[in-house]
């Protein structure tokens, strides 16, 4: 954390930008890390506005993923058996007895 204070604004934006674009490869946790790592620094008055943009976008993306994943999980767990053969095809290990 100490090292962050000694980085130039350009370096910070570069790190955040890399983490943001990296997270587009289906890596929501990278977005979360982006947010958690750089949130404090982005709130300082000396932070560049671009940093704020990337950090907040990452958080938004992470939240969106979370909502999509949770909804899919809920739908899948409850409806899988009623989907018949299609449900079995998208399942790796089909539970016995249910």
């Amino acid at each position, binding site marked *: 954390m100490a090292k962050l204070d000694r980085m130039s604004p350009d370096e910070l934006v570069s790190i955040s930008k890399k983490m943001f674009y990296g997270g587009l490869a289906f890596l929501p946790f990278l977005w979360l890390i982006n947010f958690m790592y750089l949130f404090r620094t982005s709130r300082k008055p000396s932070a560049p506005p671009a940093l704020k943009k990337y950090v907040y976008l990452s958080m938004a993306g992470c939240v969106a993923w979370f909502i999509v994943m949770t909804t899919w999980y809920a739908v899948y767990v409850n409806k899988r*058996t009623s989907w*018949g*053969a299609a449900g*079995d095809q998208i399942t790796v290990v*089909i539970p*016995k*007895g*249910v």
Partner: protein
Amino acid sequence: MCLCLFPFFLLKIAEDIGSSLYPYIYTNLNNWPCVRLLNATNTIGCHAPKTGSGVLYHVKSQNQMDDFVAGQFGSSDTYGIVLGYNLLTRDNINALQSTGRVNGLIVLLREAMNQNDFQNLHSPEENCPNCQFGLYADDDDPYNWNPQGQNLLESEFEIPIFGINPVNKISTQIYNFVMKTVEYNEEKGYDNYPLQAVDFELFMWAAMNSETCLRRGWCEAIGGLSVYSTPSVDIQADDKKTIVMLTAGMDSRSLFHDLTNGAGHDVSGLVGILAAAEALSRVDTTNLPKHILYTAFSAESWGYAGSQRFVQDISQPFTCTNESRAVTCPYGSNAPCTNPCVRTLDFKRINFDQIDSIIELGSISMTTNGEYWAHVDDIKTSESLVASLQQQQNTINSNASIFSIHPAYEDNVQRKLPPGSSTMSFLKQKQNIPAVVITDFQKELGSLYNSDLDDTLKGLDLSSICQLATTTAKTTYLQAQGNTSVAEQITANCTLVESLMDCLVSNFSCSFMQNYFNVSGITRISHYSSIFSFRNPQPQLLPRFVFTFLADVTSRSSPTLSSCATIQDCNQGEYCIKKQCVQTFTNYHDAYGTGLKYDESSGKVLIIDSTKSTWTESTWNTPVFRTFLVTSKTQQAIELVVGVLWTVISIVTVFYGKRYFKKTFKIE
């Protein structure tokens, strides 16, 4: 290096202790469970992943049951209930399930019940079993054949149900052990812990319905092998001779499939036609104007699977495509056709349109005053057949016992054919065939219909079965003759009837059976049709016996008249029966639901018609039924609290102890 091997060393010791301590804690017992079956729409039967433990408690009367359900017995514990079959009623099971304090049921069957428990029995079947697959499925107001029915056999249970019937060495051992543990609990008054408890594991793989489990490969089609036989060894489909059929069902059904017996329904009917076939074998039946065909169908309890498939196969044209198959045909290279794979094409020689009349023997062992009832579908069509039966019954003037056949409609109520009649499958195809189904009941199926208690020969009227067999044989002969008034001396062998009933109900290794098979050590056999194997269809013991018996009575000697030890010693197409090579027209026929189809090119079973029988049986893990000692819930709670407190105190002590020592002795 020794230090890093230490954890593995410890693990190994722990495993050894775990597996070596197991027999000191648990006693695993053999068991006979109720299992899960599936059809086109739902599942029935029992399925339970591991249950919790339940203290063994023997409920001996309905009062005790009511007290338990009302919560007037027992602490907050869960119980494993031991009860007699008479207490296994719909209301009791529902009440027990809803208490939430029962982890399973152990049901005591006939040999473990008290005499006075037999008074108020009810059939576990539905009001009209298999009616949705029968001839009257579309009737507006079908007759209620089983008003006392508990409707247990088609229910789904949340708790595991196991049965015990001490009829042989192993089951008696298990029964004695269970009774001993139950008495141990009783003596301790159910509150002086530790007490004996039981837990169950009855995990069924299949779920939802037949289509789902067949797709996943977790269930198998229920079925067996039917047997058909005729003395007319040279029968052909186009020989312009009509056929008189004599038929019976070969399988039974009850809650515990390993223990299914069905002495009344349907072994007695089967014995009746076997005795009639034997009686007819002593006169010449090959030169009559009509053929006589004996049929015994398997899997009849499962939507008339055997008879429907037989009717389907003999009335539809058979096309042999010889396409490629997923699995090789189990009948080898000699099979007459490899796709569809059939063991014989003899069924094509039976012409459905030539079936002239049908006589079926249903449950015929529990008559009152030797009275039998002849059921018909349509009075006008079949009344001449009934009259013929009554006429032949009059010729038997036995002083020893009374015996009579009455039309079931003689009280002017037309109930039509009773459930369980294979005849329905034939009439479905062509309703104007004269047909009669003879049973020992007129209005109701009776309290032992499809019950696990239908397994005794006591109180059965064997002499009436014999006389009925004689009457049936005579009537069949006259039908086949074209009803000229020549009366042959045809009588059934009453000793044969007794032997057959004894062998098929209580002791399959009886001396009579040694004439056909070298069998020993098998006393009771289950009459549940079990599953049909498409890869390796082997006849079960009962169809195998029926085949051999019918082959024997309908055979003509081989022209070469050689004696033999096995079938390999005889010519192609001949069988080795009772150490002689014989020629016979006796065959097996596949029996499994007509709603199912075996797709030979993929090796999978598919559902093609959900309105017909689609019964399958789930695959399962080995069911576990074990007893062990438990302590009371209070004691367990105290142990937990003490343990947690101890942990917390230890942590706190170590923490403050370290700080104190650091300060006092200046140690880091």
